[in-house]
């Protein structure tokens, strides 16, 4: 009953979404506020309705209604309660439901705001969000219905359908298959919703951009109205990516965090476009430039958001994430094509209205450096896009499937990332408008000196890899510039107002949150870069089969294999756990427990590394093979990952910087309403 109810709700919300599209369009062209209001109300109904369907699905998951194919495929009796809840997004059908649910929540939030001003934008915001929502709802209804149940046909086959096929009898399995063990990890539990929140939130600025294009507004109102949405989208997308990395590092047991898998790359692409957008809107707000470019960027971000969901969900590209294969690919492809072409056509139609108010005239001005930043982000985006579609293109053109792996991305993106880092150091020192290389040079030499000292010290300490030398010098440069900026600002404030230095610093950041929050985010990025440079350039690995009492050496550490235990665990897995002692010279540092879990119901193995993590390095030990393991000997693979912890420390700093940047500013709000 509950399943039919849930499905019925989805059909109803789909119709409501279609209605709100129609009513909003009619309302706009007839200038009828009643129709627009009807569209708005229909829109507002969708979120509570989908919430009901989601609750129904959650209830069915938790209570083990294995007659439903979705419930059967992602839960089992021995799973704990919280995993049964998170199984909601453990499969394809469920994650599409989550997408729609989050989308409807955001769409409701936007339609709930006071619409006294800018009301002409409202109908088109409704149209864009409702069309997007209707598309995802239609996928749920037509292709990926989480409420479909098992039937046995007259031929004896088991099929999953919403309604009974002729002559079929309903069947109810006694237990489900359970969630893929790889997904039973805190990182994997939060990672998809974070990523989806990021994806979905980017729909809102896009909706306002399209509304501005349709209604012919050429000011930056749409950007100001959606600034916070953009920031939230960007935060969640960033966190989603970082959590995905952490998950890969903890669970996949190959000693790394990012494999340039097509799906990973696909979720990075909207982030790249969104980050470029986040930077270039500042120029439009400050100088009235880049209007067309900003439109293009947000259109691109939206297309990439859908493309990212499509890649994860269609199984077009075989990858680690391929457990979500299905036939919804063509639908996605058509949707991306139609929305992209329509949006770009609208932009071309309004092209002349969106001309810059000021001409850019100096290559060394702040706005020129922002443009450079955007071009570099686009460069990375093109590299990623090429890497993802290259196998398809080469297969279409030559019939030969050719793929490119991580070395391609590292080689092509490395210089671009380096240039972006340099820019993070240079841009804060540049001036708006007119700026020559002389003025910029004068500002640059001070932080350059300590950076040069860092370079020399590193070289003396024995760093001879030139990529590392350049990379770490750039890191130092950005850190010096940023700290210098904080110091300079606080210092001048201290003099002017006679404040204590710390008070001045606090006030400074508080008054210019966006600027100083942005600087903190830059700092967090280079801190992450320390970790990335460390693991990418200096990772070492060794492997050996050890008998009890034997040891293995890596990077000055000695690991001794002490014992091995095997025991069943309550949730139906057999745990094989090795104990190793770690020594540095003769000094005992601690124990490591790499383990190997075998899930008997699904037959899936899972490798959990034993990790000793410090600020200097990670010792990452994997008990590699279960079959060859005996009480006497076991094969191990050991990775030494220098500096990798800074990647995670940088992520935490990123959140802090973001909070500073996005915290509501009272003054700005009042200014915003005065126009």
């Amino acid at each position, binding site marked *: 009953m509950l399943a039919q109810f849930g499905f019925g709700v989805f059909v109803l919300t789909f119709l409501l979404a279609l209605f709100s599209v129609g009513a909003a369009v009619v309302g706009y062209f007839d200038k009828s506020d009643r129709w627009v209001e009807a569209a708005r109300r229909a829109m507002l109904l969708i979120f509570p309705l989908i919430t009901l369907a989601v609750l129904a699905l959650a209830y069915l998951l938790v209570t083990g209604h294995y*007659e439903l194919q979705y419930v*059967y495929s992602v839960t089992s009796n021995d799973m704990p309660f919280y995993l049964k809840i998170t199984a909601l997004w453990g499969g394809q059908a469920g994650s599409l439901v989550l997408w729609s649910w989050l989308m409807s929540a955001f769409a409701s939030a936007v339609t709930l705001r006071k619409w006294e001003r800018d009301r002409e934008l409202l109908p088109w915001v409704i149209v864009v969000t409702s069309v997007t929502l209707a598309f995802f709802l239609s996928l749920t209804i037509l292709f990926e219905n989480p409420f479909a149940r098992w039937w046995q046909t007259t031929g004896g086959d088991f099929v999953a359908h919403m309604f009974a096929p002729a002559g079929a*009898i309903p069947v109810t399995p006694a237990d489900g298959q359970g969630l893929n063990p790889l997904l039973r990890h805190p990182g994997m539990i939060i990672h998809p919703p974070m990523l989806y929140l990021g994806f979905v939130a980017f729909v809102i600025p896009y909706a306002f951009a399209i509304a501005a294009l349709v209604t012919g507004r050429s000011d930056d109102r749409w950007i100001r109205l959606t600034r916070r949405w953009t920031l939230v989208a960007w935060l969640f997308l960033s966190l989603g990516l970082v959590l995905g990395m952490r998950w890969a590092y903890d669970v996949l047991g190959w000693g790394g965090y990012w494999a340039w898998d097509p799906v990973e790359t696909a979720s990075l692409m909207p982030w790249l476009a969104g980050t470029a957008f986040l930077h270039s809107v500042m120029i439009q707000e400050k100088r009235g430039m880049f209007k067309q470019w900003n439109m293009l960027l947000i259109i691109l971000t939206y297309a990439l958001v859908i493309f990212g969901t499509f890649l994860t969900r269609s199984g077009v590209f075989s990858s680690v994430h391929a457990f979500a294969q299905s036939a919804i690919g063509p639908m996605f492809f058509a949707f991306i094509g139609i929305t992209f072409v329509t949006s770009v056509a609208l932009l071309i139609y309004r092209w002349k209205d969106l001309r810059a108010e*000021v001409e850019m005239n100096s290559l060394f001005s702040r706005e020129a450096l922002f443009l450079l930043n955007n071009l570099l982000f686009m460069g990375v985006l093109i590299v990623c896009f090429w890497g993802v579609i290259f196998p398809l293109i080469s297969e279409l053109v030559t019939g*030969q499937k050719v793929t490119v792996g991580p070395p391609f991305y590292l080689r092509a993106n490395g210089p671009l990332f380096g240039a972006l880092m340099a820019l993070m150091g240079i841009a804060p020192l540049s001036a708006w408008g007119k700026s020559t290389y002389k003025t910029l040079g004068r500002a640059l030499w001070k932080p350059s000196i300590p950076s040069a000292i860092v370079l020399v010290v590193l070289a003396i300490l024995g760093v001879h890899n030139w990529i590392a030398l350049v990379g770490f010098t750039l890191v130092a440069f950005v850190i010096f510039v940023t700290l210098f900026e904080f110091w300079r600002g606080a210092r001048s404030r201290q003099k002017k107002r006679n404040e204590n230095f710390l008070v001045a610093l606090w006030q400074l950041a508080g008054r210019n949150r966006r600027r100083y929050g942005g600087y903190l985010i830059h700092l967090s990025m280079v801190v992450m870069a320390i970790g990335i440079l460390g693991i990418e350039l200096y990772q070492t690995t060794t492997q050996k089969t050890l008998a009890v009492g034997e040891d293995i050496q890596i990077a000055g550490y000695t690991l001794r294999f002490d014992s091995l235990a095997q025991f069943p665990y309550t949730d139906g897995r057999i745990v094989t756990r090795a104990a190793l002692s770690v020594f540095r010279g003769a000094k005992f540092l601690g124990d490591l427990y790499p383990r190997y879990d075998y899930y008997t119901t699904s037959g899936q193995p899972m490798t959990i590394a034993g990790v000793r993590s410090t600020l200097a390095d990670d010792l990452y030990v994997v008990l590699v093979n279960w079959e060859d393991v005996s009480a006497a000997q076991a094969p191990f693979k050991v990775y030494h990952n220098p500096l990798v912890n800074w990647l995670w420390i940088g992520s935490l700093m990123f959140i802090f910087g973001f909070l500073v940047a996005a915290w509501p500013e009272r003054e700005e709000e009042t200014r915003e309403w005065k126009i």
Partner: protein
Amino acid sequence: MQKPLQTGIQGRAKFIVGGLLILAAVIYLIVSATQANAEFFMTVNELKSKGNSLVGRSLRISGAVIGDSIQYNPQTMNLTFEIAHVPGDNAAVEMGGGLAAVLHTAVTDPTRARLTIVYNGPKPDLLRDEAQAIVTGHLGEDGIFYADELLLKCPTKYQEAVPSQVVNGN
């Protein structure tokens, strides 16, 4: 503060030149990185037909694992096994009755082209008879494939599962 509009060709030219330079740099990076790192994805038959012309190139080969051929020395972590040719494109796999059936036919057919793989490292759990192996590495002069990376898929495990124990009725 509004700056006077300056639409000099000179003012714009430097930006166009700058932009083109960046574009050229990105294209250069992509082309050179693609050339240096492209991995050719091929079947065993395609590899055999090209002979030794591919020696030393970065290759990615897919095939069906022959269970009897697996030899592993846990002490040295030396792993050797053979894979049999399976068709590369999805349509042919569908025609053959799905991946599991295609892999089964490949392993049981003695006339199929086979390739010996050598790998140094732990033996993956999924390395079994009739598993699909995707190996990345290069072909040696001796006709043996030296793999740096093994990726294994067991079709039975990832298949859309159908309930095994069922209770009829509700």
